[in-house]
């Protein structure tokens, strides 16, 4: 299966290891992965701040960059929701471009969604390098994809050595919201502290997210508050299990 990675601007700059984890795990599950280098940003910040014309120009570019991709997979729930919820309506007055957008949207998947809906992977048989206690923060924008946190938790629980514990107020936004975190930093700060406090209560070593924005926000608050857990993208955990299991098989 041929997959093109949409890594997103945030992951490109701040979390190359998340991008690589997506590449390596998709390859492990039998995909051939390519990375179209002309990609930039989906336009979500512009759209959400009331600049649809600017978002539209970026959507045109995205659709063009990925025009021959079979599947487009992204580690970011919110970027995928931007594409799926808004790309078609952005071209309401341009039937040709709208058709291209519809075709593009139909090929776009968030990482966990792709693993569970298209690849229908099973993680049993994969083992983590060492036992780890996880909790899961529900990335709000998965709502826009009609998704719940259930598939990600199911995958996590399948990993050998993974212990799962429920996060209180798991579905309460961490307070990222793009420019919201800067413009309304007092409110956003109160929200992310709440998230970290709930994380601490779980006793987990790792909080799993599937969005780069949540990871930056909760991770940054964890560091400031010296919380005893770290924030990781689910792809990083799966990649660690893939690598460990492959290594164990070789030896």
């Amino acid at each position, binding site marked *: 299966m041929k997959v093109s990675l949409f890594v997103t601007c945030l992951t490109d700059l701040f979390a190359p290891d998340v991008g690589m984890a997506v590449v390596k795990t998709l390859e492990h599950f039998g995909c051939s992965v390519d990375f179209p280098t002309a990609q930039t940003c989906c*336009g979500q910040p512009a759209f959400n701040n009331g*600049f649809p014309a*600017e978002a539209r120009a970026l959507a045109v570019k995205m659709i063009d960059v990925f025009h021959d991709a079979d599947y487009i997979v992204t580690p970011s729930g919110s970027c995928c929701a931007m594409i799926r919820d808004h790309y078609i309506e952005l071209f309401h007055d341009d039937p040709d471009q709208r058709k291209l957008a519809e075709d593009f949207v139909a090929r776009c998947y968030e990482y966990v969604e792709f693993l569970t809906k298209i690849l229908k992977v099973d993680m049993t048989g994969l083992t983590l390098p060492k036992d780890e206690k996880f909790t899961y923060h529900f990335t709000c924008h998965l709502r826009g994809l009609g998704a719940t946190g259930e598939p990600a938790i199911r995958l996590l629980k399948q990993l050998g050595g993974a212990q799962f514990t429920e996060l209180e107020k798991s579905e309460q936004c961490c307070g990222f919201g793009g420019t*919201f975190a800067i413009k309304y*930093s*007092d409110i956003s700060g109160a929200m992310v502290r*709440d998230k970290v406090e709930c994380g601490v209560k779980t006793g987990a070593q790792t909080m799993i997210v599937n969005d780069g924005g949540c990871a930056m926000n909760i991770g940054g*608050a964890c560091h400031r508050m010296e919380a005893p857990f770290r924030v990781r993208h689910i792809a990083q955990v799966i990649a660690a299990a893939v690598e460990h299991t492959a290594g164990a098989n070789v030896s």
Partner: protein
Amino acid sequence: MTSTLESPSSPKRRMSLPVFHPDFMTEAHTASADAGLHAALDNSVTKKDYGRRSSLAELPDADGLRQLAGDIKRHTLDHLDYYLELLERNIIKHGGKVYFAATREQANDLIVNIAQRTGSKLVVKSKSMVSEETELNDALIAAGIEPLETDLGEFILQVDHDHPTHIVMPVIHKNAAEIGRVFERYFKTPFTDNPQELAEMARVYLRNRFNQADMGISGVNFAIAETGSIVLCTNEGNGRMCTTRPRIHVALMGMEKVIPSLDDLPVFLKLLARSASGQALTQYTNIITGCRRPGEHDGPEEFHLIIMDNGRAKILAGEYRDTLRCIRCGACLNACPIYRKVGGRTYGSVYPGPIGALLTPLFNGLENHKHLPHASSLCGACFEACPVKINIPEFLIKLRKDQVEQGITTAPERIIFKLWSWGLRHGWSYRLGQIAQRVMMRSIGNKDGWIKKLPPPAQGWTAHRDFPMPPKHDFRYVYKQYRAIQQRGK
């Protein structure tokens, strides 16, 4: 601090909704640091939100029911003139009187006139958000008529000269001790913070005053056009007292509250209490059709229904019609992570929370409430909770777009977004931007990989949390190396 109301660029206009706290940023700053408020809200609204979820999960197809409720509301709003006329005819048929008020001042005048004509001195009120919208109590007092709130929460607020901070749970911002002090002052009795004792004090006092009241005022949860009935959903029973005991009953409703027929009512009754509080039904559901008929022994002698526009027709005519579907259940407030951190007061006006962030600018003008459309992380919890499927996040984005188009968005922000998106259209400028950000951020980052203080305009981020320093190499570089090593391996 009334800058947002009186800035020279936005001439003060008559506002449809009263504004109690115009300075959003100051209110937000104070409330977001108030741990007591957060704990109180978690203990109430967050719990109610979980109650909503579990009670809706008991229904065979809650999502289908929400869709149906939204569709009924949409249909009614699309034919609002027809249904309002039908309602009017049927109310009159049952001996009631109907008035249309274009503004909140007109609505208040109508009620004051009815009170004066009927010689009413004491008016008992059942909880009504729309009367908060009109500031009816002030108008009655100005005319020498005594209004008395009989919903426990509203009563506390009235005697404390405060305003509701939640649509359904008006006094959520006060704890038992604070209420105890309010009653200590008002009743001049020894202090207690025992909720049962406090409720009993109010009950005994109110019970006595119900008997003295000349007129009862209620809101309207639903008005049924086909039967000429109004429906009241309450938990305390005070609504029933207000609408049966006094000689005169006046009901005040926003014009969007009408539904076509009695058959539509169960759809909303199934959703309203579940969405508001997780109850299957409110304790009291009253369907009131007209006043006392000849030969009957009780009930009010007169029934008056006031149907108010106050800016709704303008919203109805525009692109925000769906916002008028709102049945004021408060589910979006309970689900909202922002509301849970800032409380209702921060929203400044009568309707707080996500629906208020939408309605207040629509009623009062975007220029008067610049922050409300933006103070949302667009997490979508409100849309998920809404029993009539108002897509609040989409509408907030639309309001932001309107702000850009109306020139309310500041010039620097417009320039930043235009430059930013232009930069992202080209590979070279994207790369240049990423490199510049990396160099800048790596120069201010600590050895541990975190930035403690970002420069303006991003300083707000690091006021509350650290910012990750970008690694030395971006994804593209790492990916290229990975492929190169694979190539060499072959």
